[in-house]
Each structure stands twice: as C-alpha cells, then as structure tokens.
C-alpha cells in the first residue's frame, strides 16, 4: 500500500458550546487525491487543522500510516499544508521560502539549493528565486506555497481552498497542474473545498462533510449518481425533488401526477422524495404532459422550467446541439430513464 494513508477514528472537537466535529470517522487511502467537501461550518477546516496538528481532538484518534498522531506537534508531523492565504513569509525571497522547511531539517546549504531549484522546476517558476512574495502574482504565489510544502516531501499534502483566491481563468490551469503534481509525486493529496465542482473535477475520492458528520465518502460519480442521502443530493449538483408516497416497493405515487417507477425499495406507504437531475430529463413528444414556463439560455445548454400536472414544477437542462429550443408556453412531453430517478425518505 502507498504511504500517506490517513485514518480518522471517531474524532470530536468542540469550540465552546459548538460541536464542530461530532465523532467523525474517515479513511483516506495512501496516494489518493481526496476532496473534503462541505459548506462553511461543516467542520472541514477544523479536520484539516487537526490533521496538521494545530488543534488537538477532544476525542478520537488520527492515524497516519498506522501511527497515532496524538501529542505530536505540527513541526514533527510528516504532513504539510498549503494555506488558503498561502502564508508566504514576506521578508524572505521565493528561494528562502521554499528552502525554509529544508533548512529546519538541517540540510547543508548546497543540498537546500539543489532541492529548491528542483521544486522551482516542478512548479515551473524557474528564474523567480530572488523575488519577494509581494512581487508575485496570485498564481505564482500559490505555486510558491505549493513548492514550499512539497519541498519537505510530506507523506500527506493538505490544501486549504487553494483556488479561492485565484480568478476563474487561472483555476482551470491550476487544477490540471495539481493533477499533474499528484501524478508525478504519488503523495496523498487532501483538498479542502466548499466548491463541489472543484471537488468533482479534481479528486478521485470525495468525502462530503455535513455539520460535523461524514455524509458520504466515495468517487465523484458515487456522490453525484448515487447520493446516500437527501443532503448529499442537494449539496452535490442540482436536483429536482418531487414529494410522493410509495405504493409498492417499485413505484411512487405522486399526487396529481400518477405513479413513477423507481429503482429503490422502500416500505410501502412511506413518504419520500423522488429526485431527478436536470440533465437526465428528456423533453419531447412523449412522457408526462408539461408546459414550458421559462427558458434560460446558457450558450452550451438551456435550462427549462416545466410545469407538470398537480402543481409539480421541475427544471430540465438540455444541450443546445441542434439549435432547436422549446419555447415558453409550448406543451411538451417530459420523460426520464427509469434508473435516473432517486428516492429518498422524507
């Protein structure tokens, strides 16, 4: 197994009266690229600070490659963190920033220089070693922060909202850079983010935190296609939710609309939500009769607001491949593949 496996076992952390983490357990495989996804207040940043060693858990254990991190200060953990603000030392040059951690290890000056230029080449910043942080652009500062953390050759690299301070054009580029670094180094990357798109696009595993609990852990497809709960379905991507009641194991009765076949098995007579992702919905001649009440044009796709019988309203997203669009007021048929419908207990 690859190095850098993180195991969080029943970790709890309170700040005053507020329980930020409430018995959280999570396993992160060595060498993986895992995103800790969650809204603000979900506890993701607290978990990050616990792993880095800036806070101590009130209960539970944090193990890195099987070694209990309890009582080990941040400066002795084989874990490095890229701060959201980058936290570059303003009084040091780029080279001194990157070499800071190496000098702390007592490496000889020549070895430090060699490793620093190696890191500069890795993040493609050759030639900027003598700049001061204030002379760097946002993207350059971020790469210096990355190089500084990676120079220590950590088993585990923590990234705290690394894209938050970058503008849109730069994010796309930085994402592919992060993926490249992860591929080349094989270090475990743990990315903390509130941006679900970023988590889905970057990580090979996503752990969704919800108010101090682990809501779901899995591949990006698991979270999007097979959300474990209503909260996960709502947080990751968009979803239409239609209230109904199960009439037998395989169908849900929706007032005014009729019965919908669903894949999940739930006890008969239970109140449920049927969830359908907007892009799974087909608009055509067949299916449930509906009226288009609004069309929002997004260029590559259009989002339609559709009124169905029984006051049910849903949103459908269709790619604009042929230029044909349904218009407001048009009567259409709405359908979706049977497997696309998700069922959640109310």
């Amino acid at each position, binding site marked *: 197994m690859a190095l850098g496996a993180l195991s969080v076992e029943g970790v709890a952390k309170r700040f005053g009266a507020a329980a930020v983490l409430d018995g959280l357990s999570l396993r992160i495989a060595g060498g993986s690229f895992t995103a800790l996804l969650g809204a603000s207040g979900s506890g993701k940043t607290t978990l990050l600070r616990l792993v*880095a060693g800036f806070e101590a858990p009130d209960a539970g254990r944090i193990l890195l490659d099987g070694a209990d991190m309890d009582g080990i200060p941040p*400066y002795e953990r084989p874990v490095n*963190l890229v701060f959201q603000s980058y*936290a570059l*030392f*303003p009084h040091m040059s780029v080279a001194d920033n990157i070499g800071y951690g190496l000098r702390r290890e007592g490496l000889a000056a020549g070895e430090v220089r060699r490793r620093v230029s190696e890191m500069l080449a890795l993040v493609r910043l050759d030639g900027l070693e003598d700049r001061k942080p204030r002379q760097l652009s946002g993207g350059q500062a971020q790469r210096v922060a990355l190089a500084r953390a990676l120079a220590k050759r950590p088993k585990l690299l923590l990234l705290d909202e690394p894209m938050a301070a970058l503008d849109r054009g730069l994010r796309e580029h930085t994402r592919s850079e992060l993926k490249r670094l992860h591929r080349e180094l094989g270090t475990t990357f743990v990315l903390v983010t509130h941006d679900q798109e970023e988590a889905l696009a970057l990580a090979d595993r996503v752990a969704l935190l919800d108010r101090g609990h682990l809501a779901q852990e899995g591949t990006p497809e698991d979270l999007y296609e097979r959300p474990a709960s209503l909260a996960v379905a709502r947080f990751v991507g968009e979803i239409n939710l239609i209230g109904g009641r199960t009439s037998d194991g395989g169908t849900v009765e929706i007032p005014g609309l009729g019965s919908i076949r669903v894949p999940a098995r739930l006890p008969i007579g239970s109140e449920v939500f049927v969830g359908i992702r907007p892009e799974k919905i087909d608009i055509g001649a067949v299916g449930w009769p509906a009226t288009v009440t609004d069309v929002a044009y997004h260029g590559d796709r259009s989002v339609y607001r559709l009124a169905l019988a029984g006051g049910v309203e849903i949103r459908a997203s269709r790619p604009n491949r042929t230029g044909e669009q349904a218009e407001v007021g048009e009567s259409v048929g709405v359908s979706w593949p049977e497997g696309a419908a998700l069922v959640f207990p109310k």
Partner: protein
Amino acid sequence: MSLRLLILGLVFAFLYGPILWIVVFSFNEGRLVTLWSGFSTRWYGELLRNQRLMDAAGLSLVIAAISATLATILGSLSGFALARLGRFRGRLLFAGALGAVLTLPEVILGLAQLLAFVALDDLPGWPGRGAATIVAAHATLGMAYVALVVQARLSDFDRSLEEAALDLGATPATVFLTVTLPLILPALGGGWLIAFMLSLDDVVLASFVSGPGATTLPMVVFSSARLGLNPQINALATLMVGIGALAVLSAVWLLGRRQELSR
C-alpha cells in the same frame, strides 16, 4: 486657493516659527538672543568647550539608550501578553495600568516614583537617587508606549505565517526567531526610538527622581533658561531638534514599513 495657502502658512508659522527662531539665532554672532548681528558658528564652538553641558548631554544619551532598551524589552513582553495571551486573569487591570502611565500627568507620575524611591532608600544595596533612578523612571514611561506599538503590530499580524513555519518543521522558538521577530522588528525599532526621545527630552520625571549627582541635559537647559538666555542653549537646542527630527522620521519609516511587508 491663496486663502488656503495663507492658512497653511499661518499654521506652520505657529507650529515651527519659535523653533526656526532658535535655529536661526543659534548662528548669531552676538550675545543677544533677539538682535541679529551676523552669521557665526562661535556658539557651537563654545558649546563643545562647555564641560558642564557636554557631561549632561553624555549622561542624557546614556540614560536614554539604557532606558529605551529596558522599555523595549519590558514593553514588548507586555505587548505580547496583551495581544497573544487571550483573556487572562487581570488582563483589564494590566492594560489599565499601562494606560495609566500614558494618561497620568507627569508631575503625578514623577511624584509617585520619587516617593517610591525614597521608601527604597533604606534598602541595603540600593544605589540611591541618581542616574539609575532616572533610568527606571524613563523605562516605566517608555515601556507603556512600546507596549502600545507592539500590541498594535501583533494584533494585525497574520498568525498563519507562524503556523506555516510550524508546519514546515520549525519549533516554536525557531518560529519566533525566524518569522515573528523579523516581522515585528520595525515596530520594536520604532518603539525604541519613541522611548529614546521620551527619555532625552524629559525634564519633569528626571527632576523628581534624580539625586544631586545626576543632571540630565534638559535639566541643565531648564535651569539655565531661568538664569538668563544664553546663545549656547540655542545651539544646543538646534542640535537636539536635529536629533529629534531624525529619530521621529526613522520611527515613522520603521512603523510604516509594516504596510509594505504585510502586503
């Protein structure tokens, strides 16, 4: 427009006119301090040959340097306590005690310190009133200013810089020496200069707590001004204005540097 310039001119004349007067007349040939009789630097020469004034100036500089250094050490520790230790027991009392030094009239402060030093006179090994007690009095005043400056600098200090250093393998002591100290050094330097100038131009505290052996420069100036104006004092004042301006400009530059650094 011309009215604004006029008002500006009047304000500056009001602020700096008397000082300019002294500077100009320090180069006066004659003995009279109100009548211009030609340019000369003779008073500077006489000043340098005046052993009493030179001794006082030397003592003042030594006292200012030592008390400013003590004030910087004690004031930095106080500033750290106020900015970093959270809401410890007695924090309000401590902050209030420091603030009191800043707001109390110097006459009261001087009197209080005199009474304290008199009470300590019976202590075996106590040096008695003189240069040492002036240093103690000035360090007390100076540390309150330094604490204020250091606390302000630390309160807008980005703590993630220290966390980053810890994360990169630096022990807390190394973090302080390699990250915290270099970044607050300008504030410490500015605080030292403020304390130095406070000590150099203080006449009230020094008059209260000094003994017969120790006379600082401001004390000499003050007493000689009462005996009659002497052009040597003008020359001395001009030099002190020069030193003071240099110190203030340095302090402003040092304290202003943090904006540039923290960007």
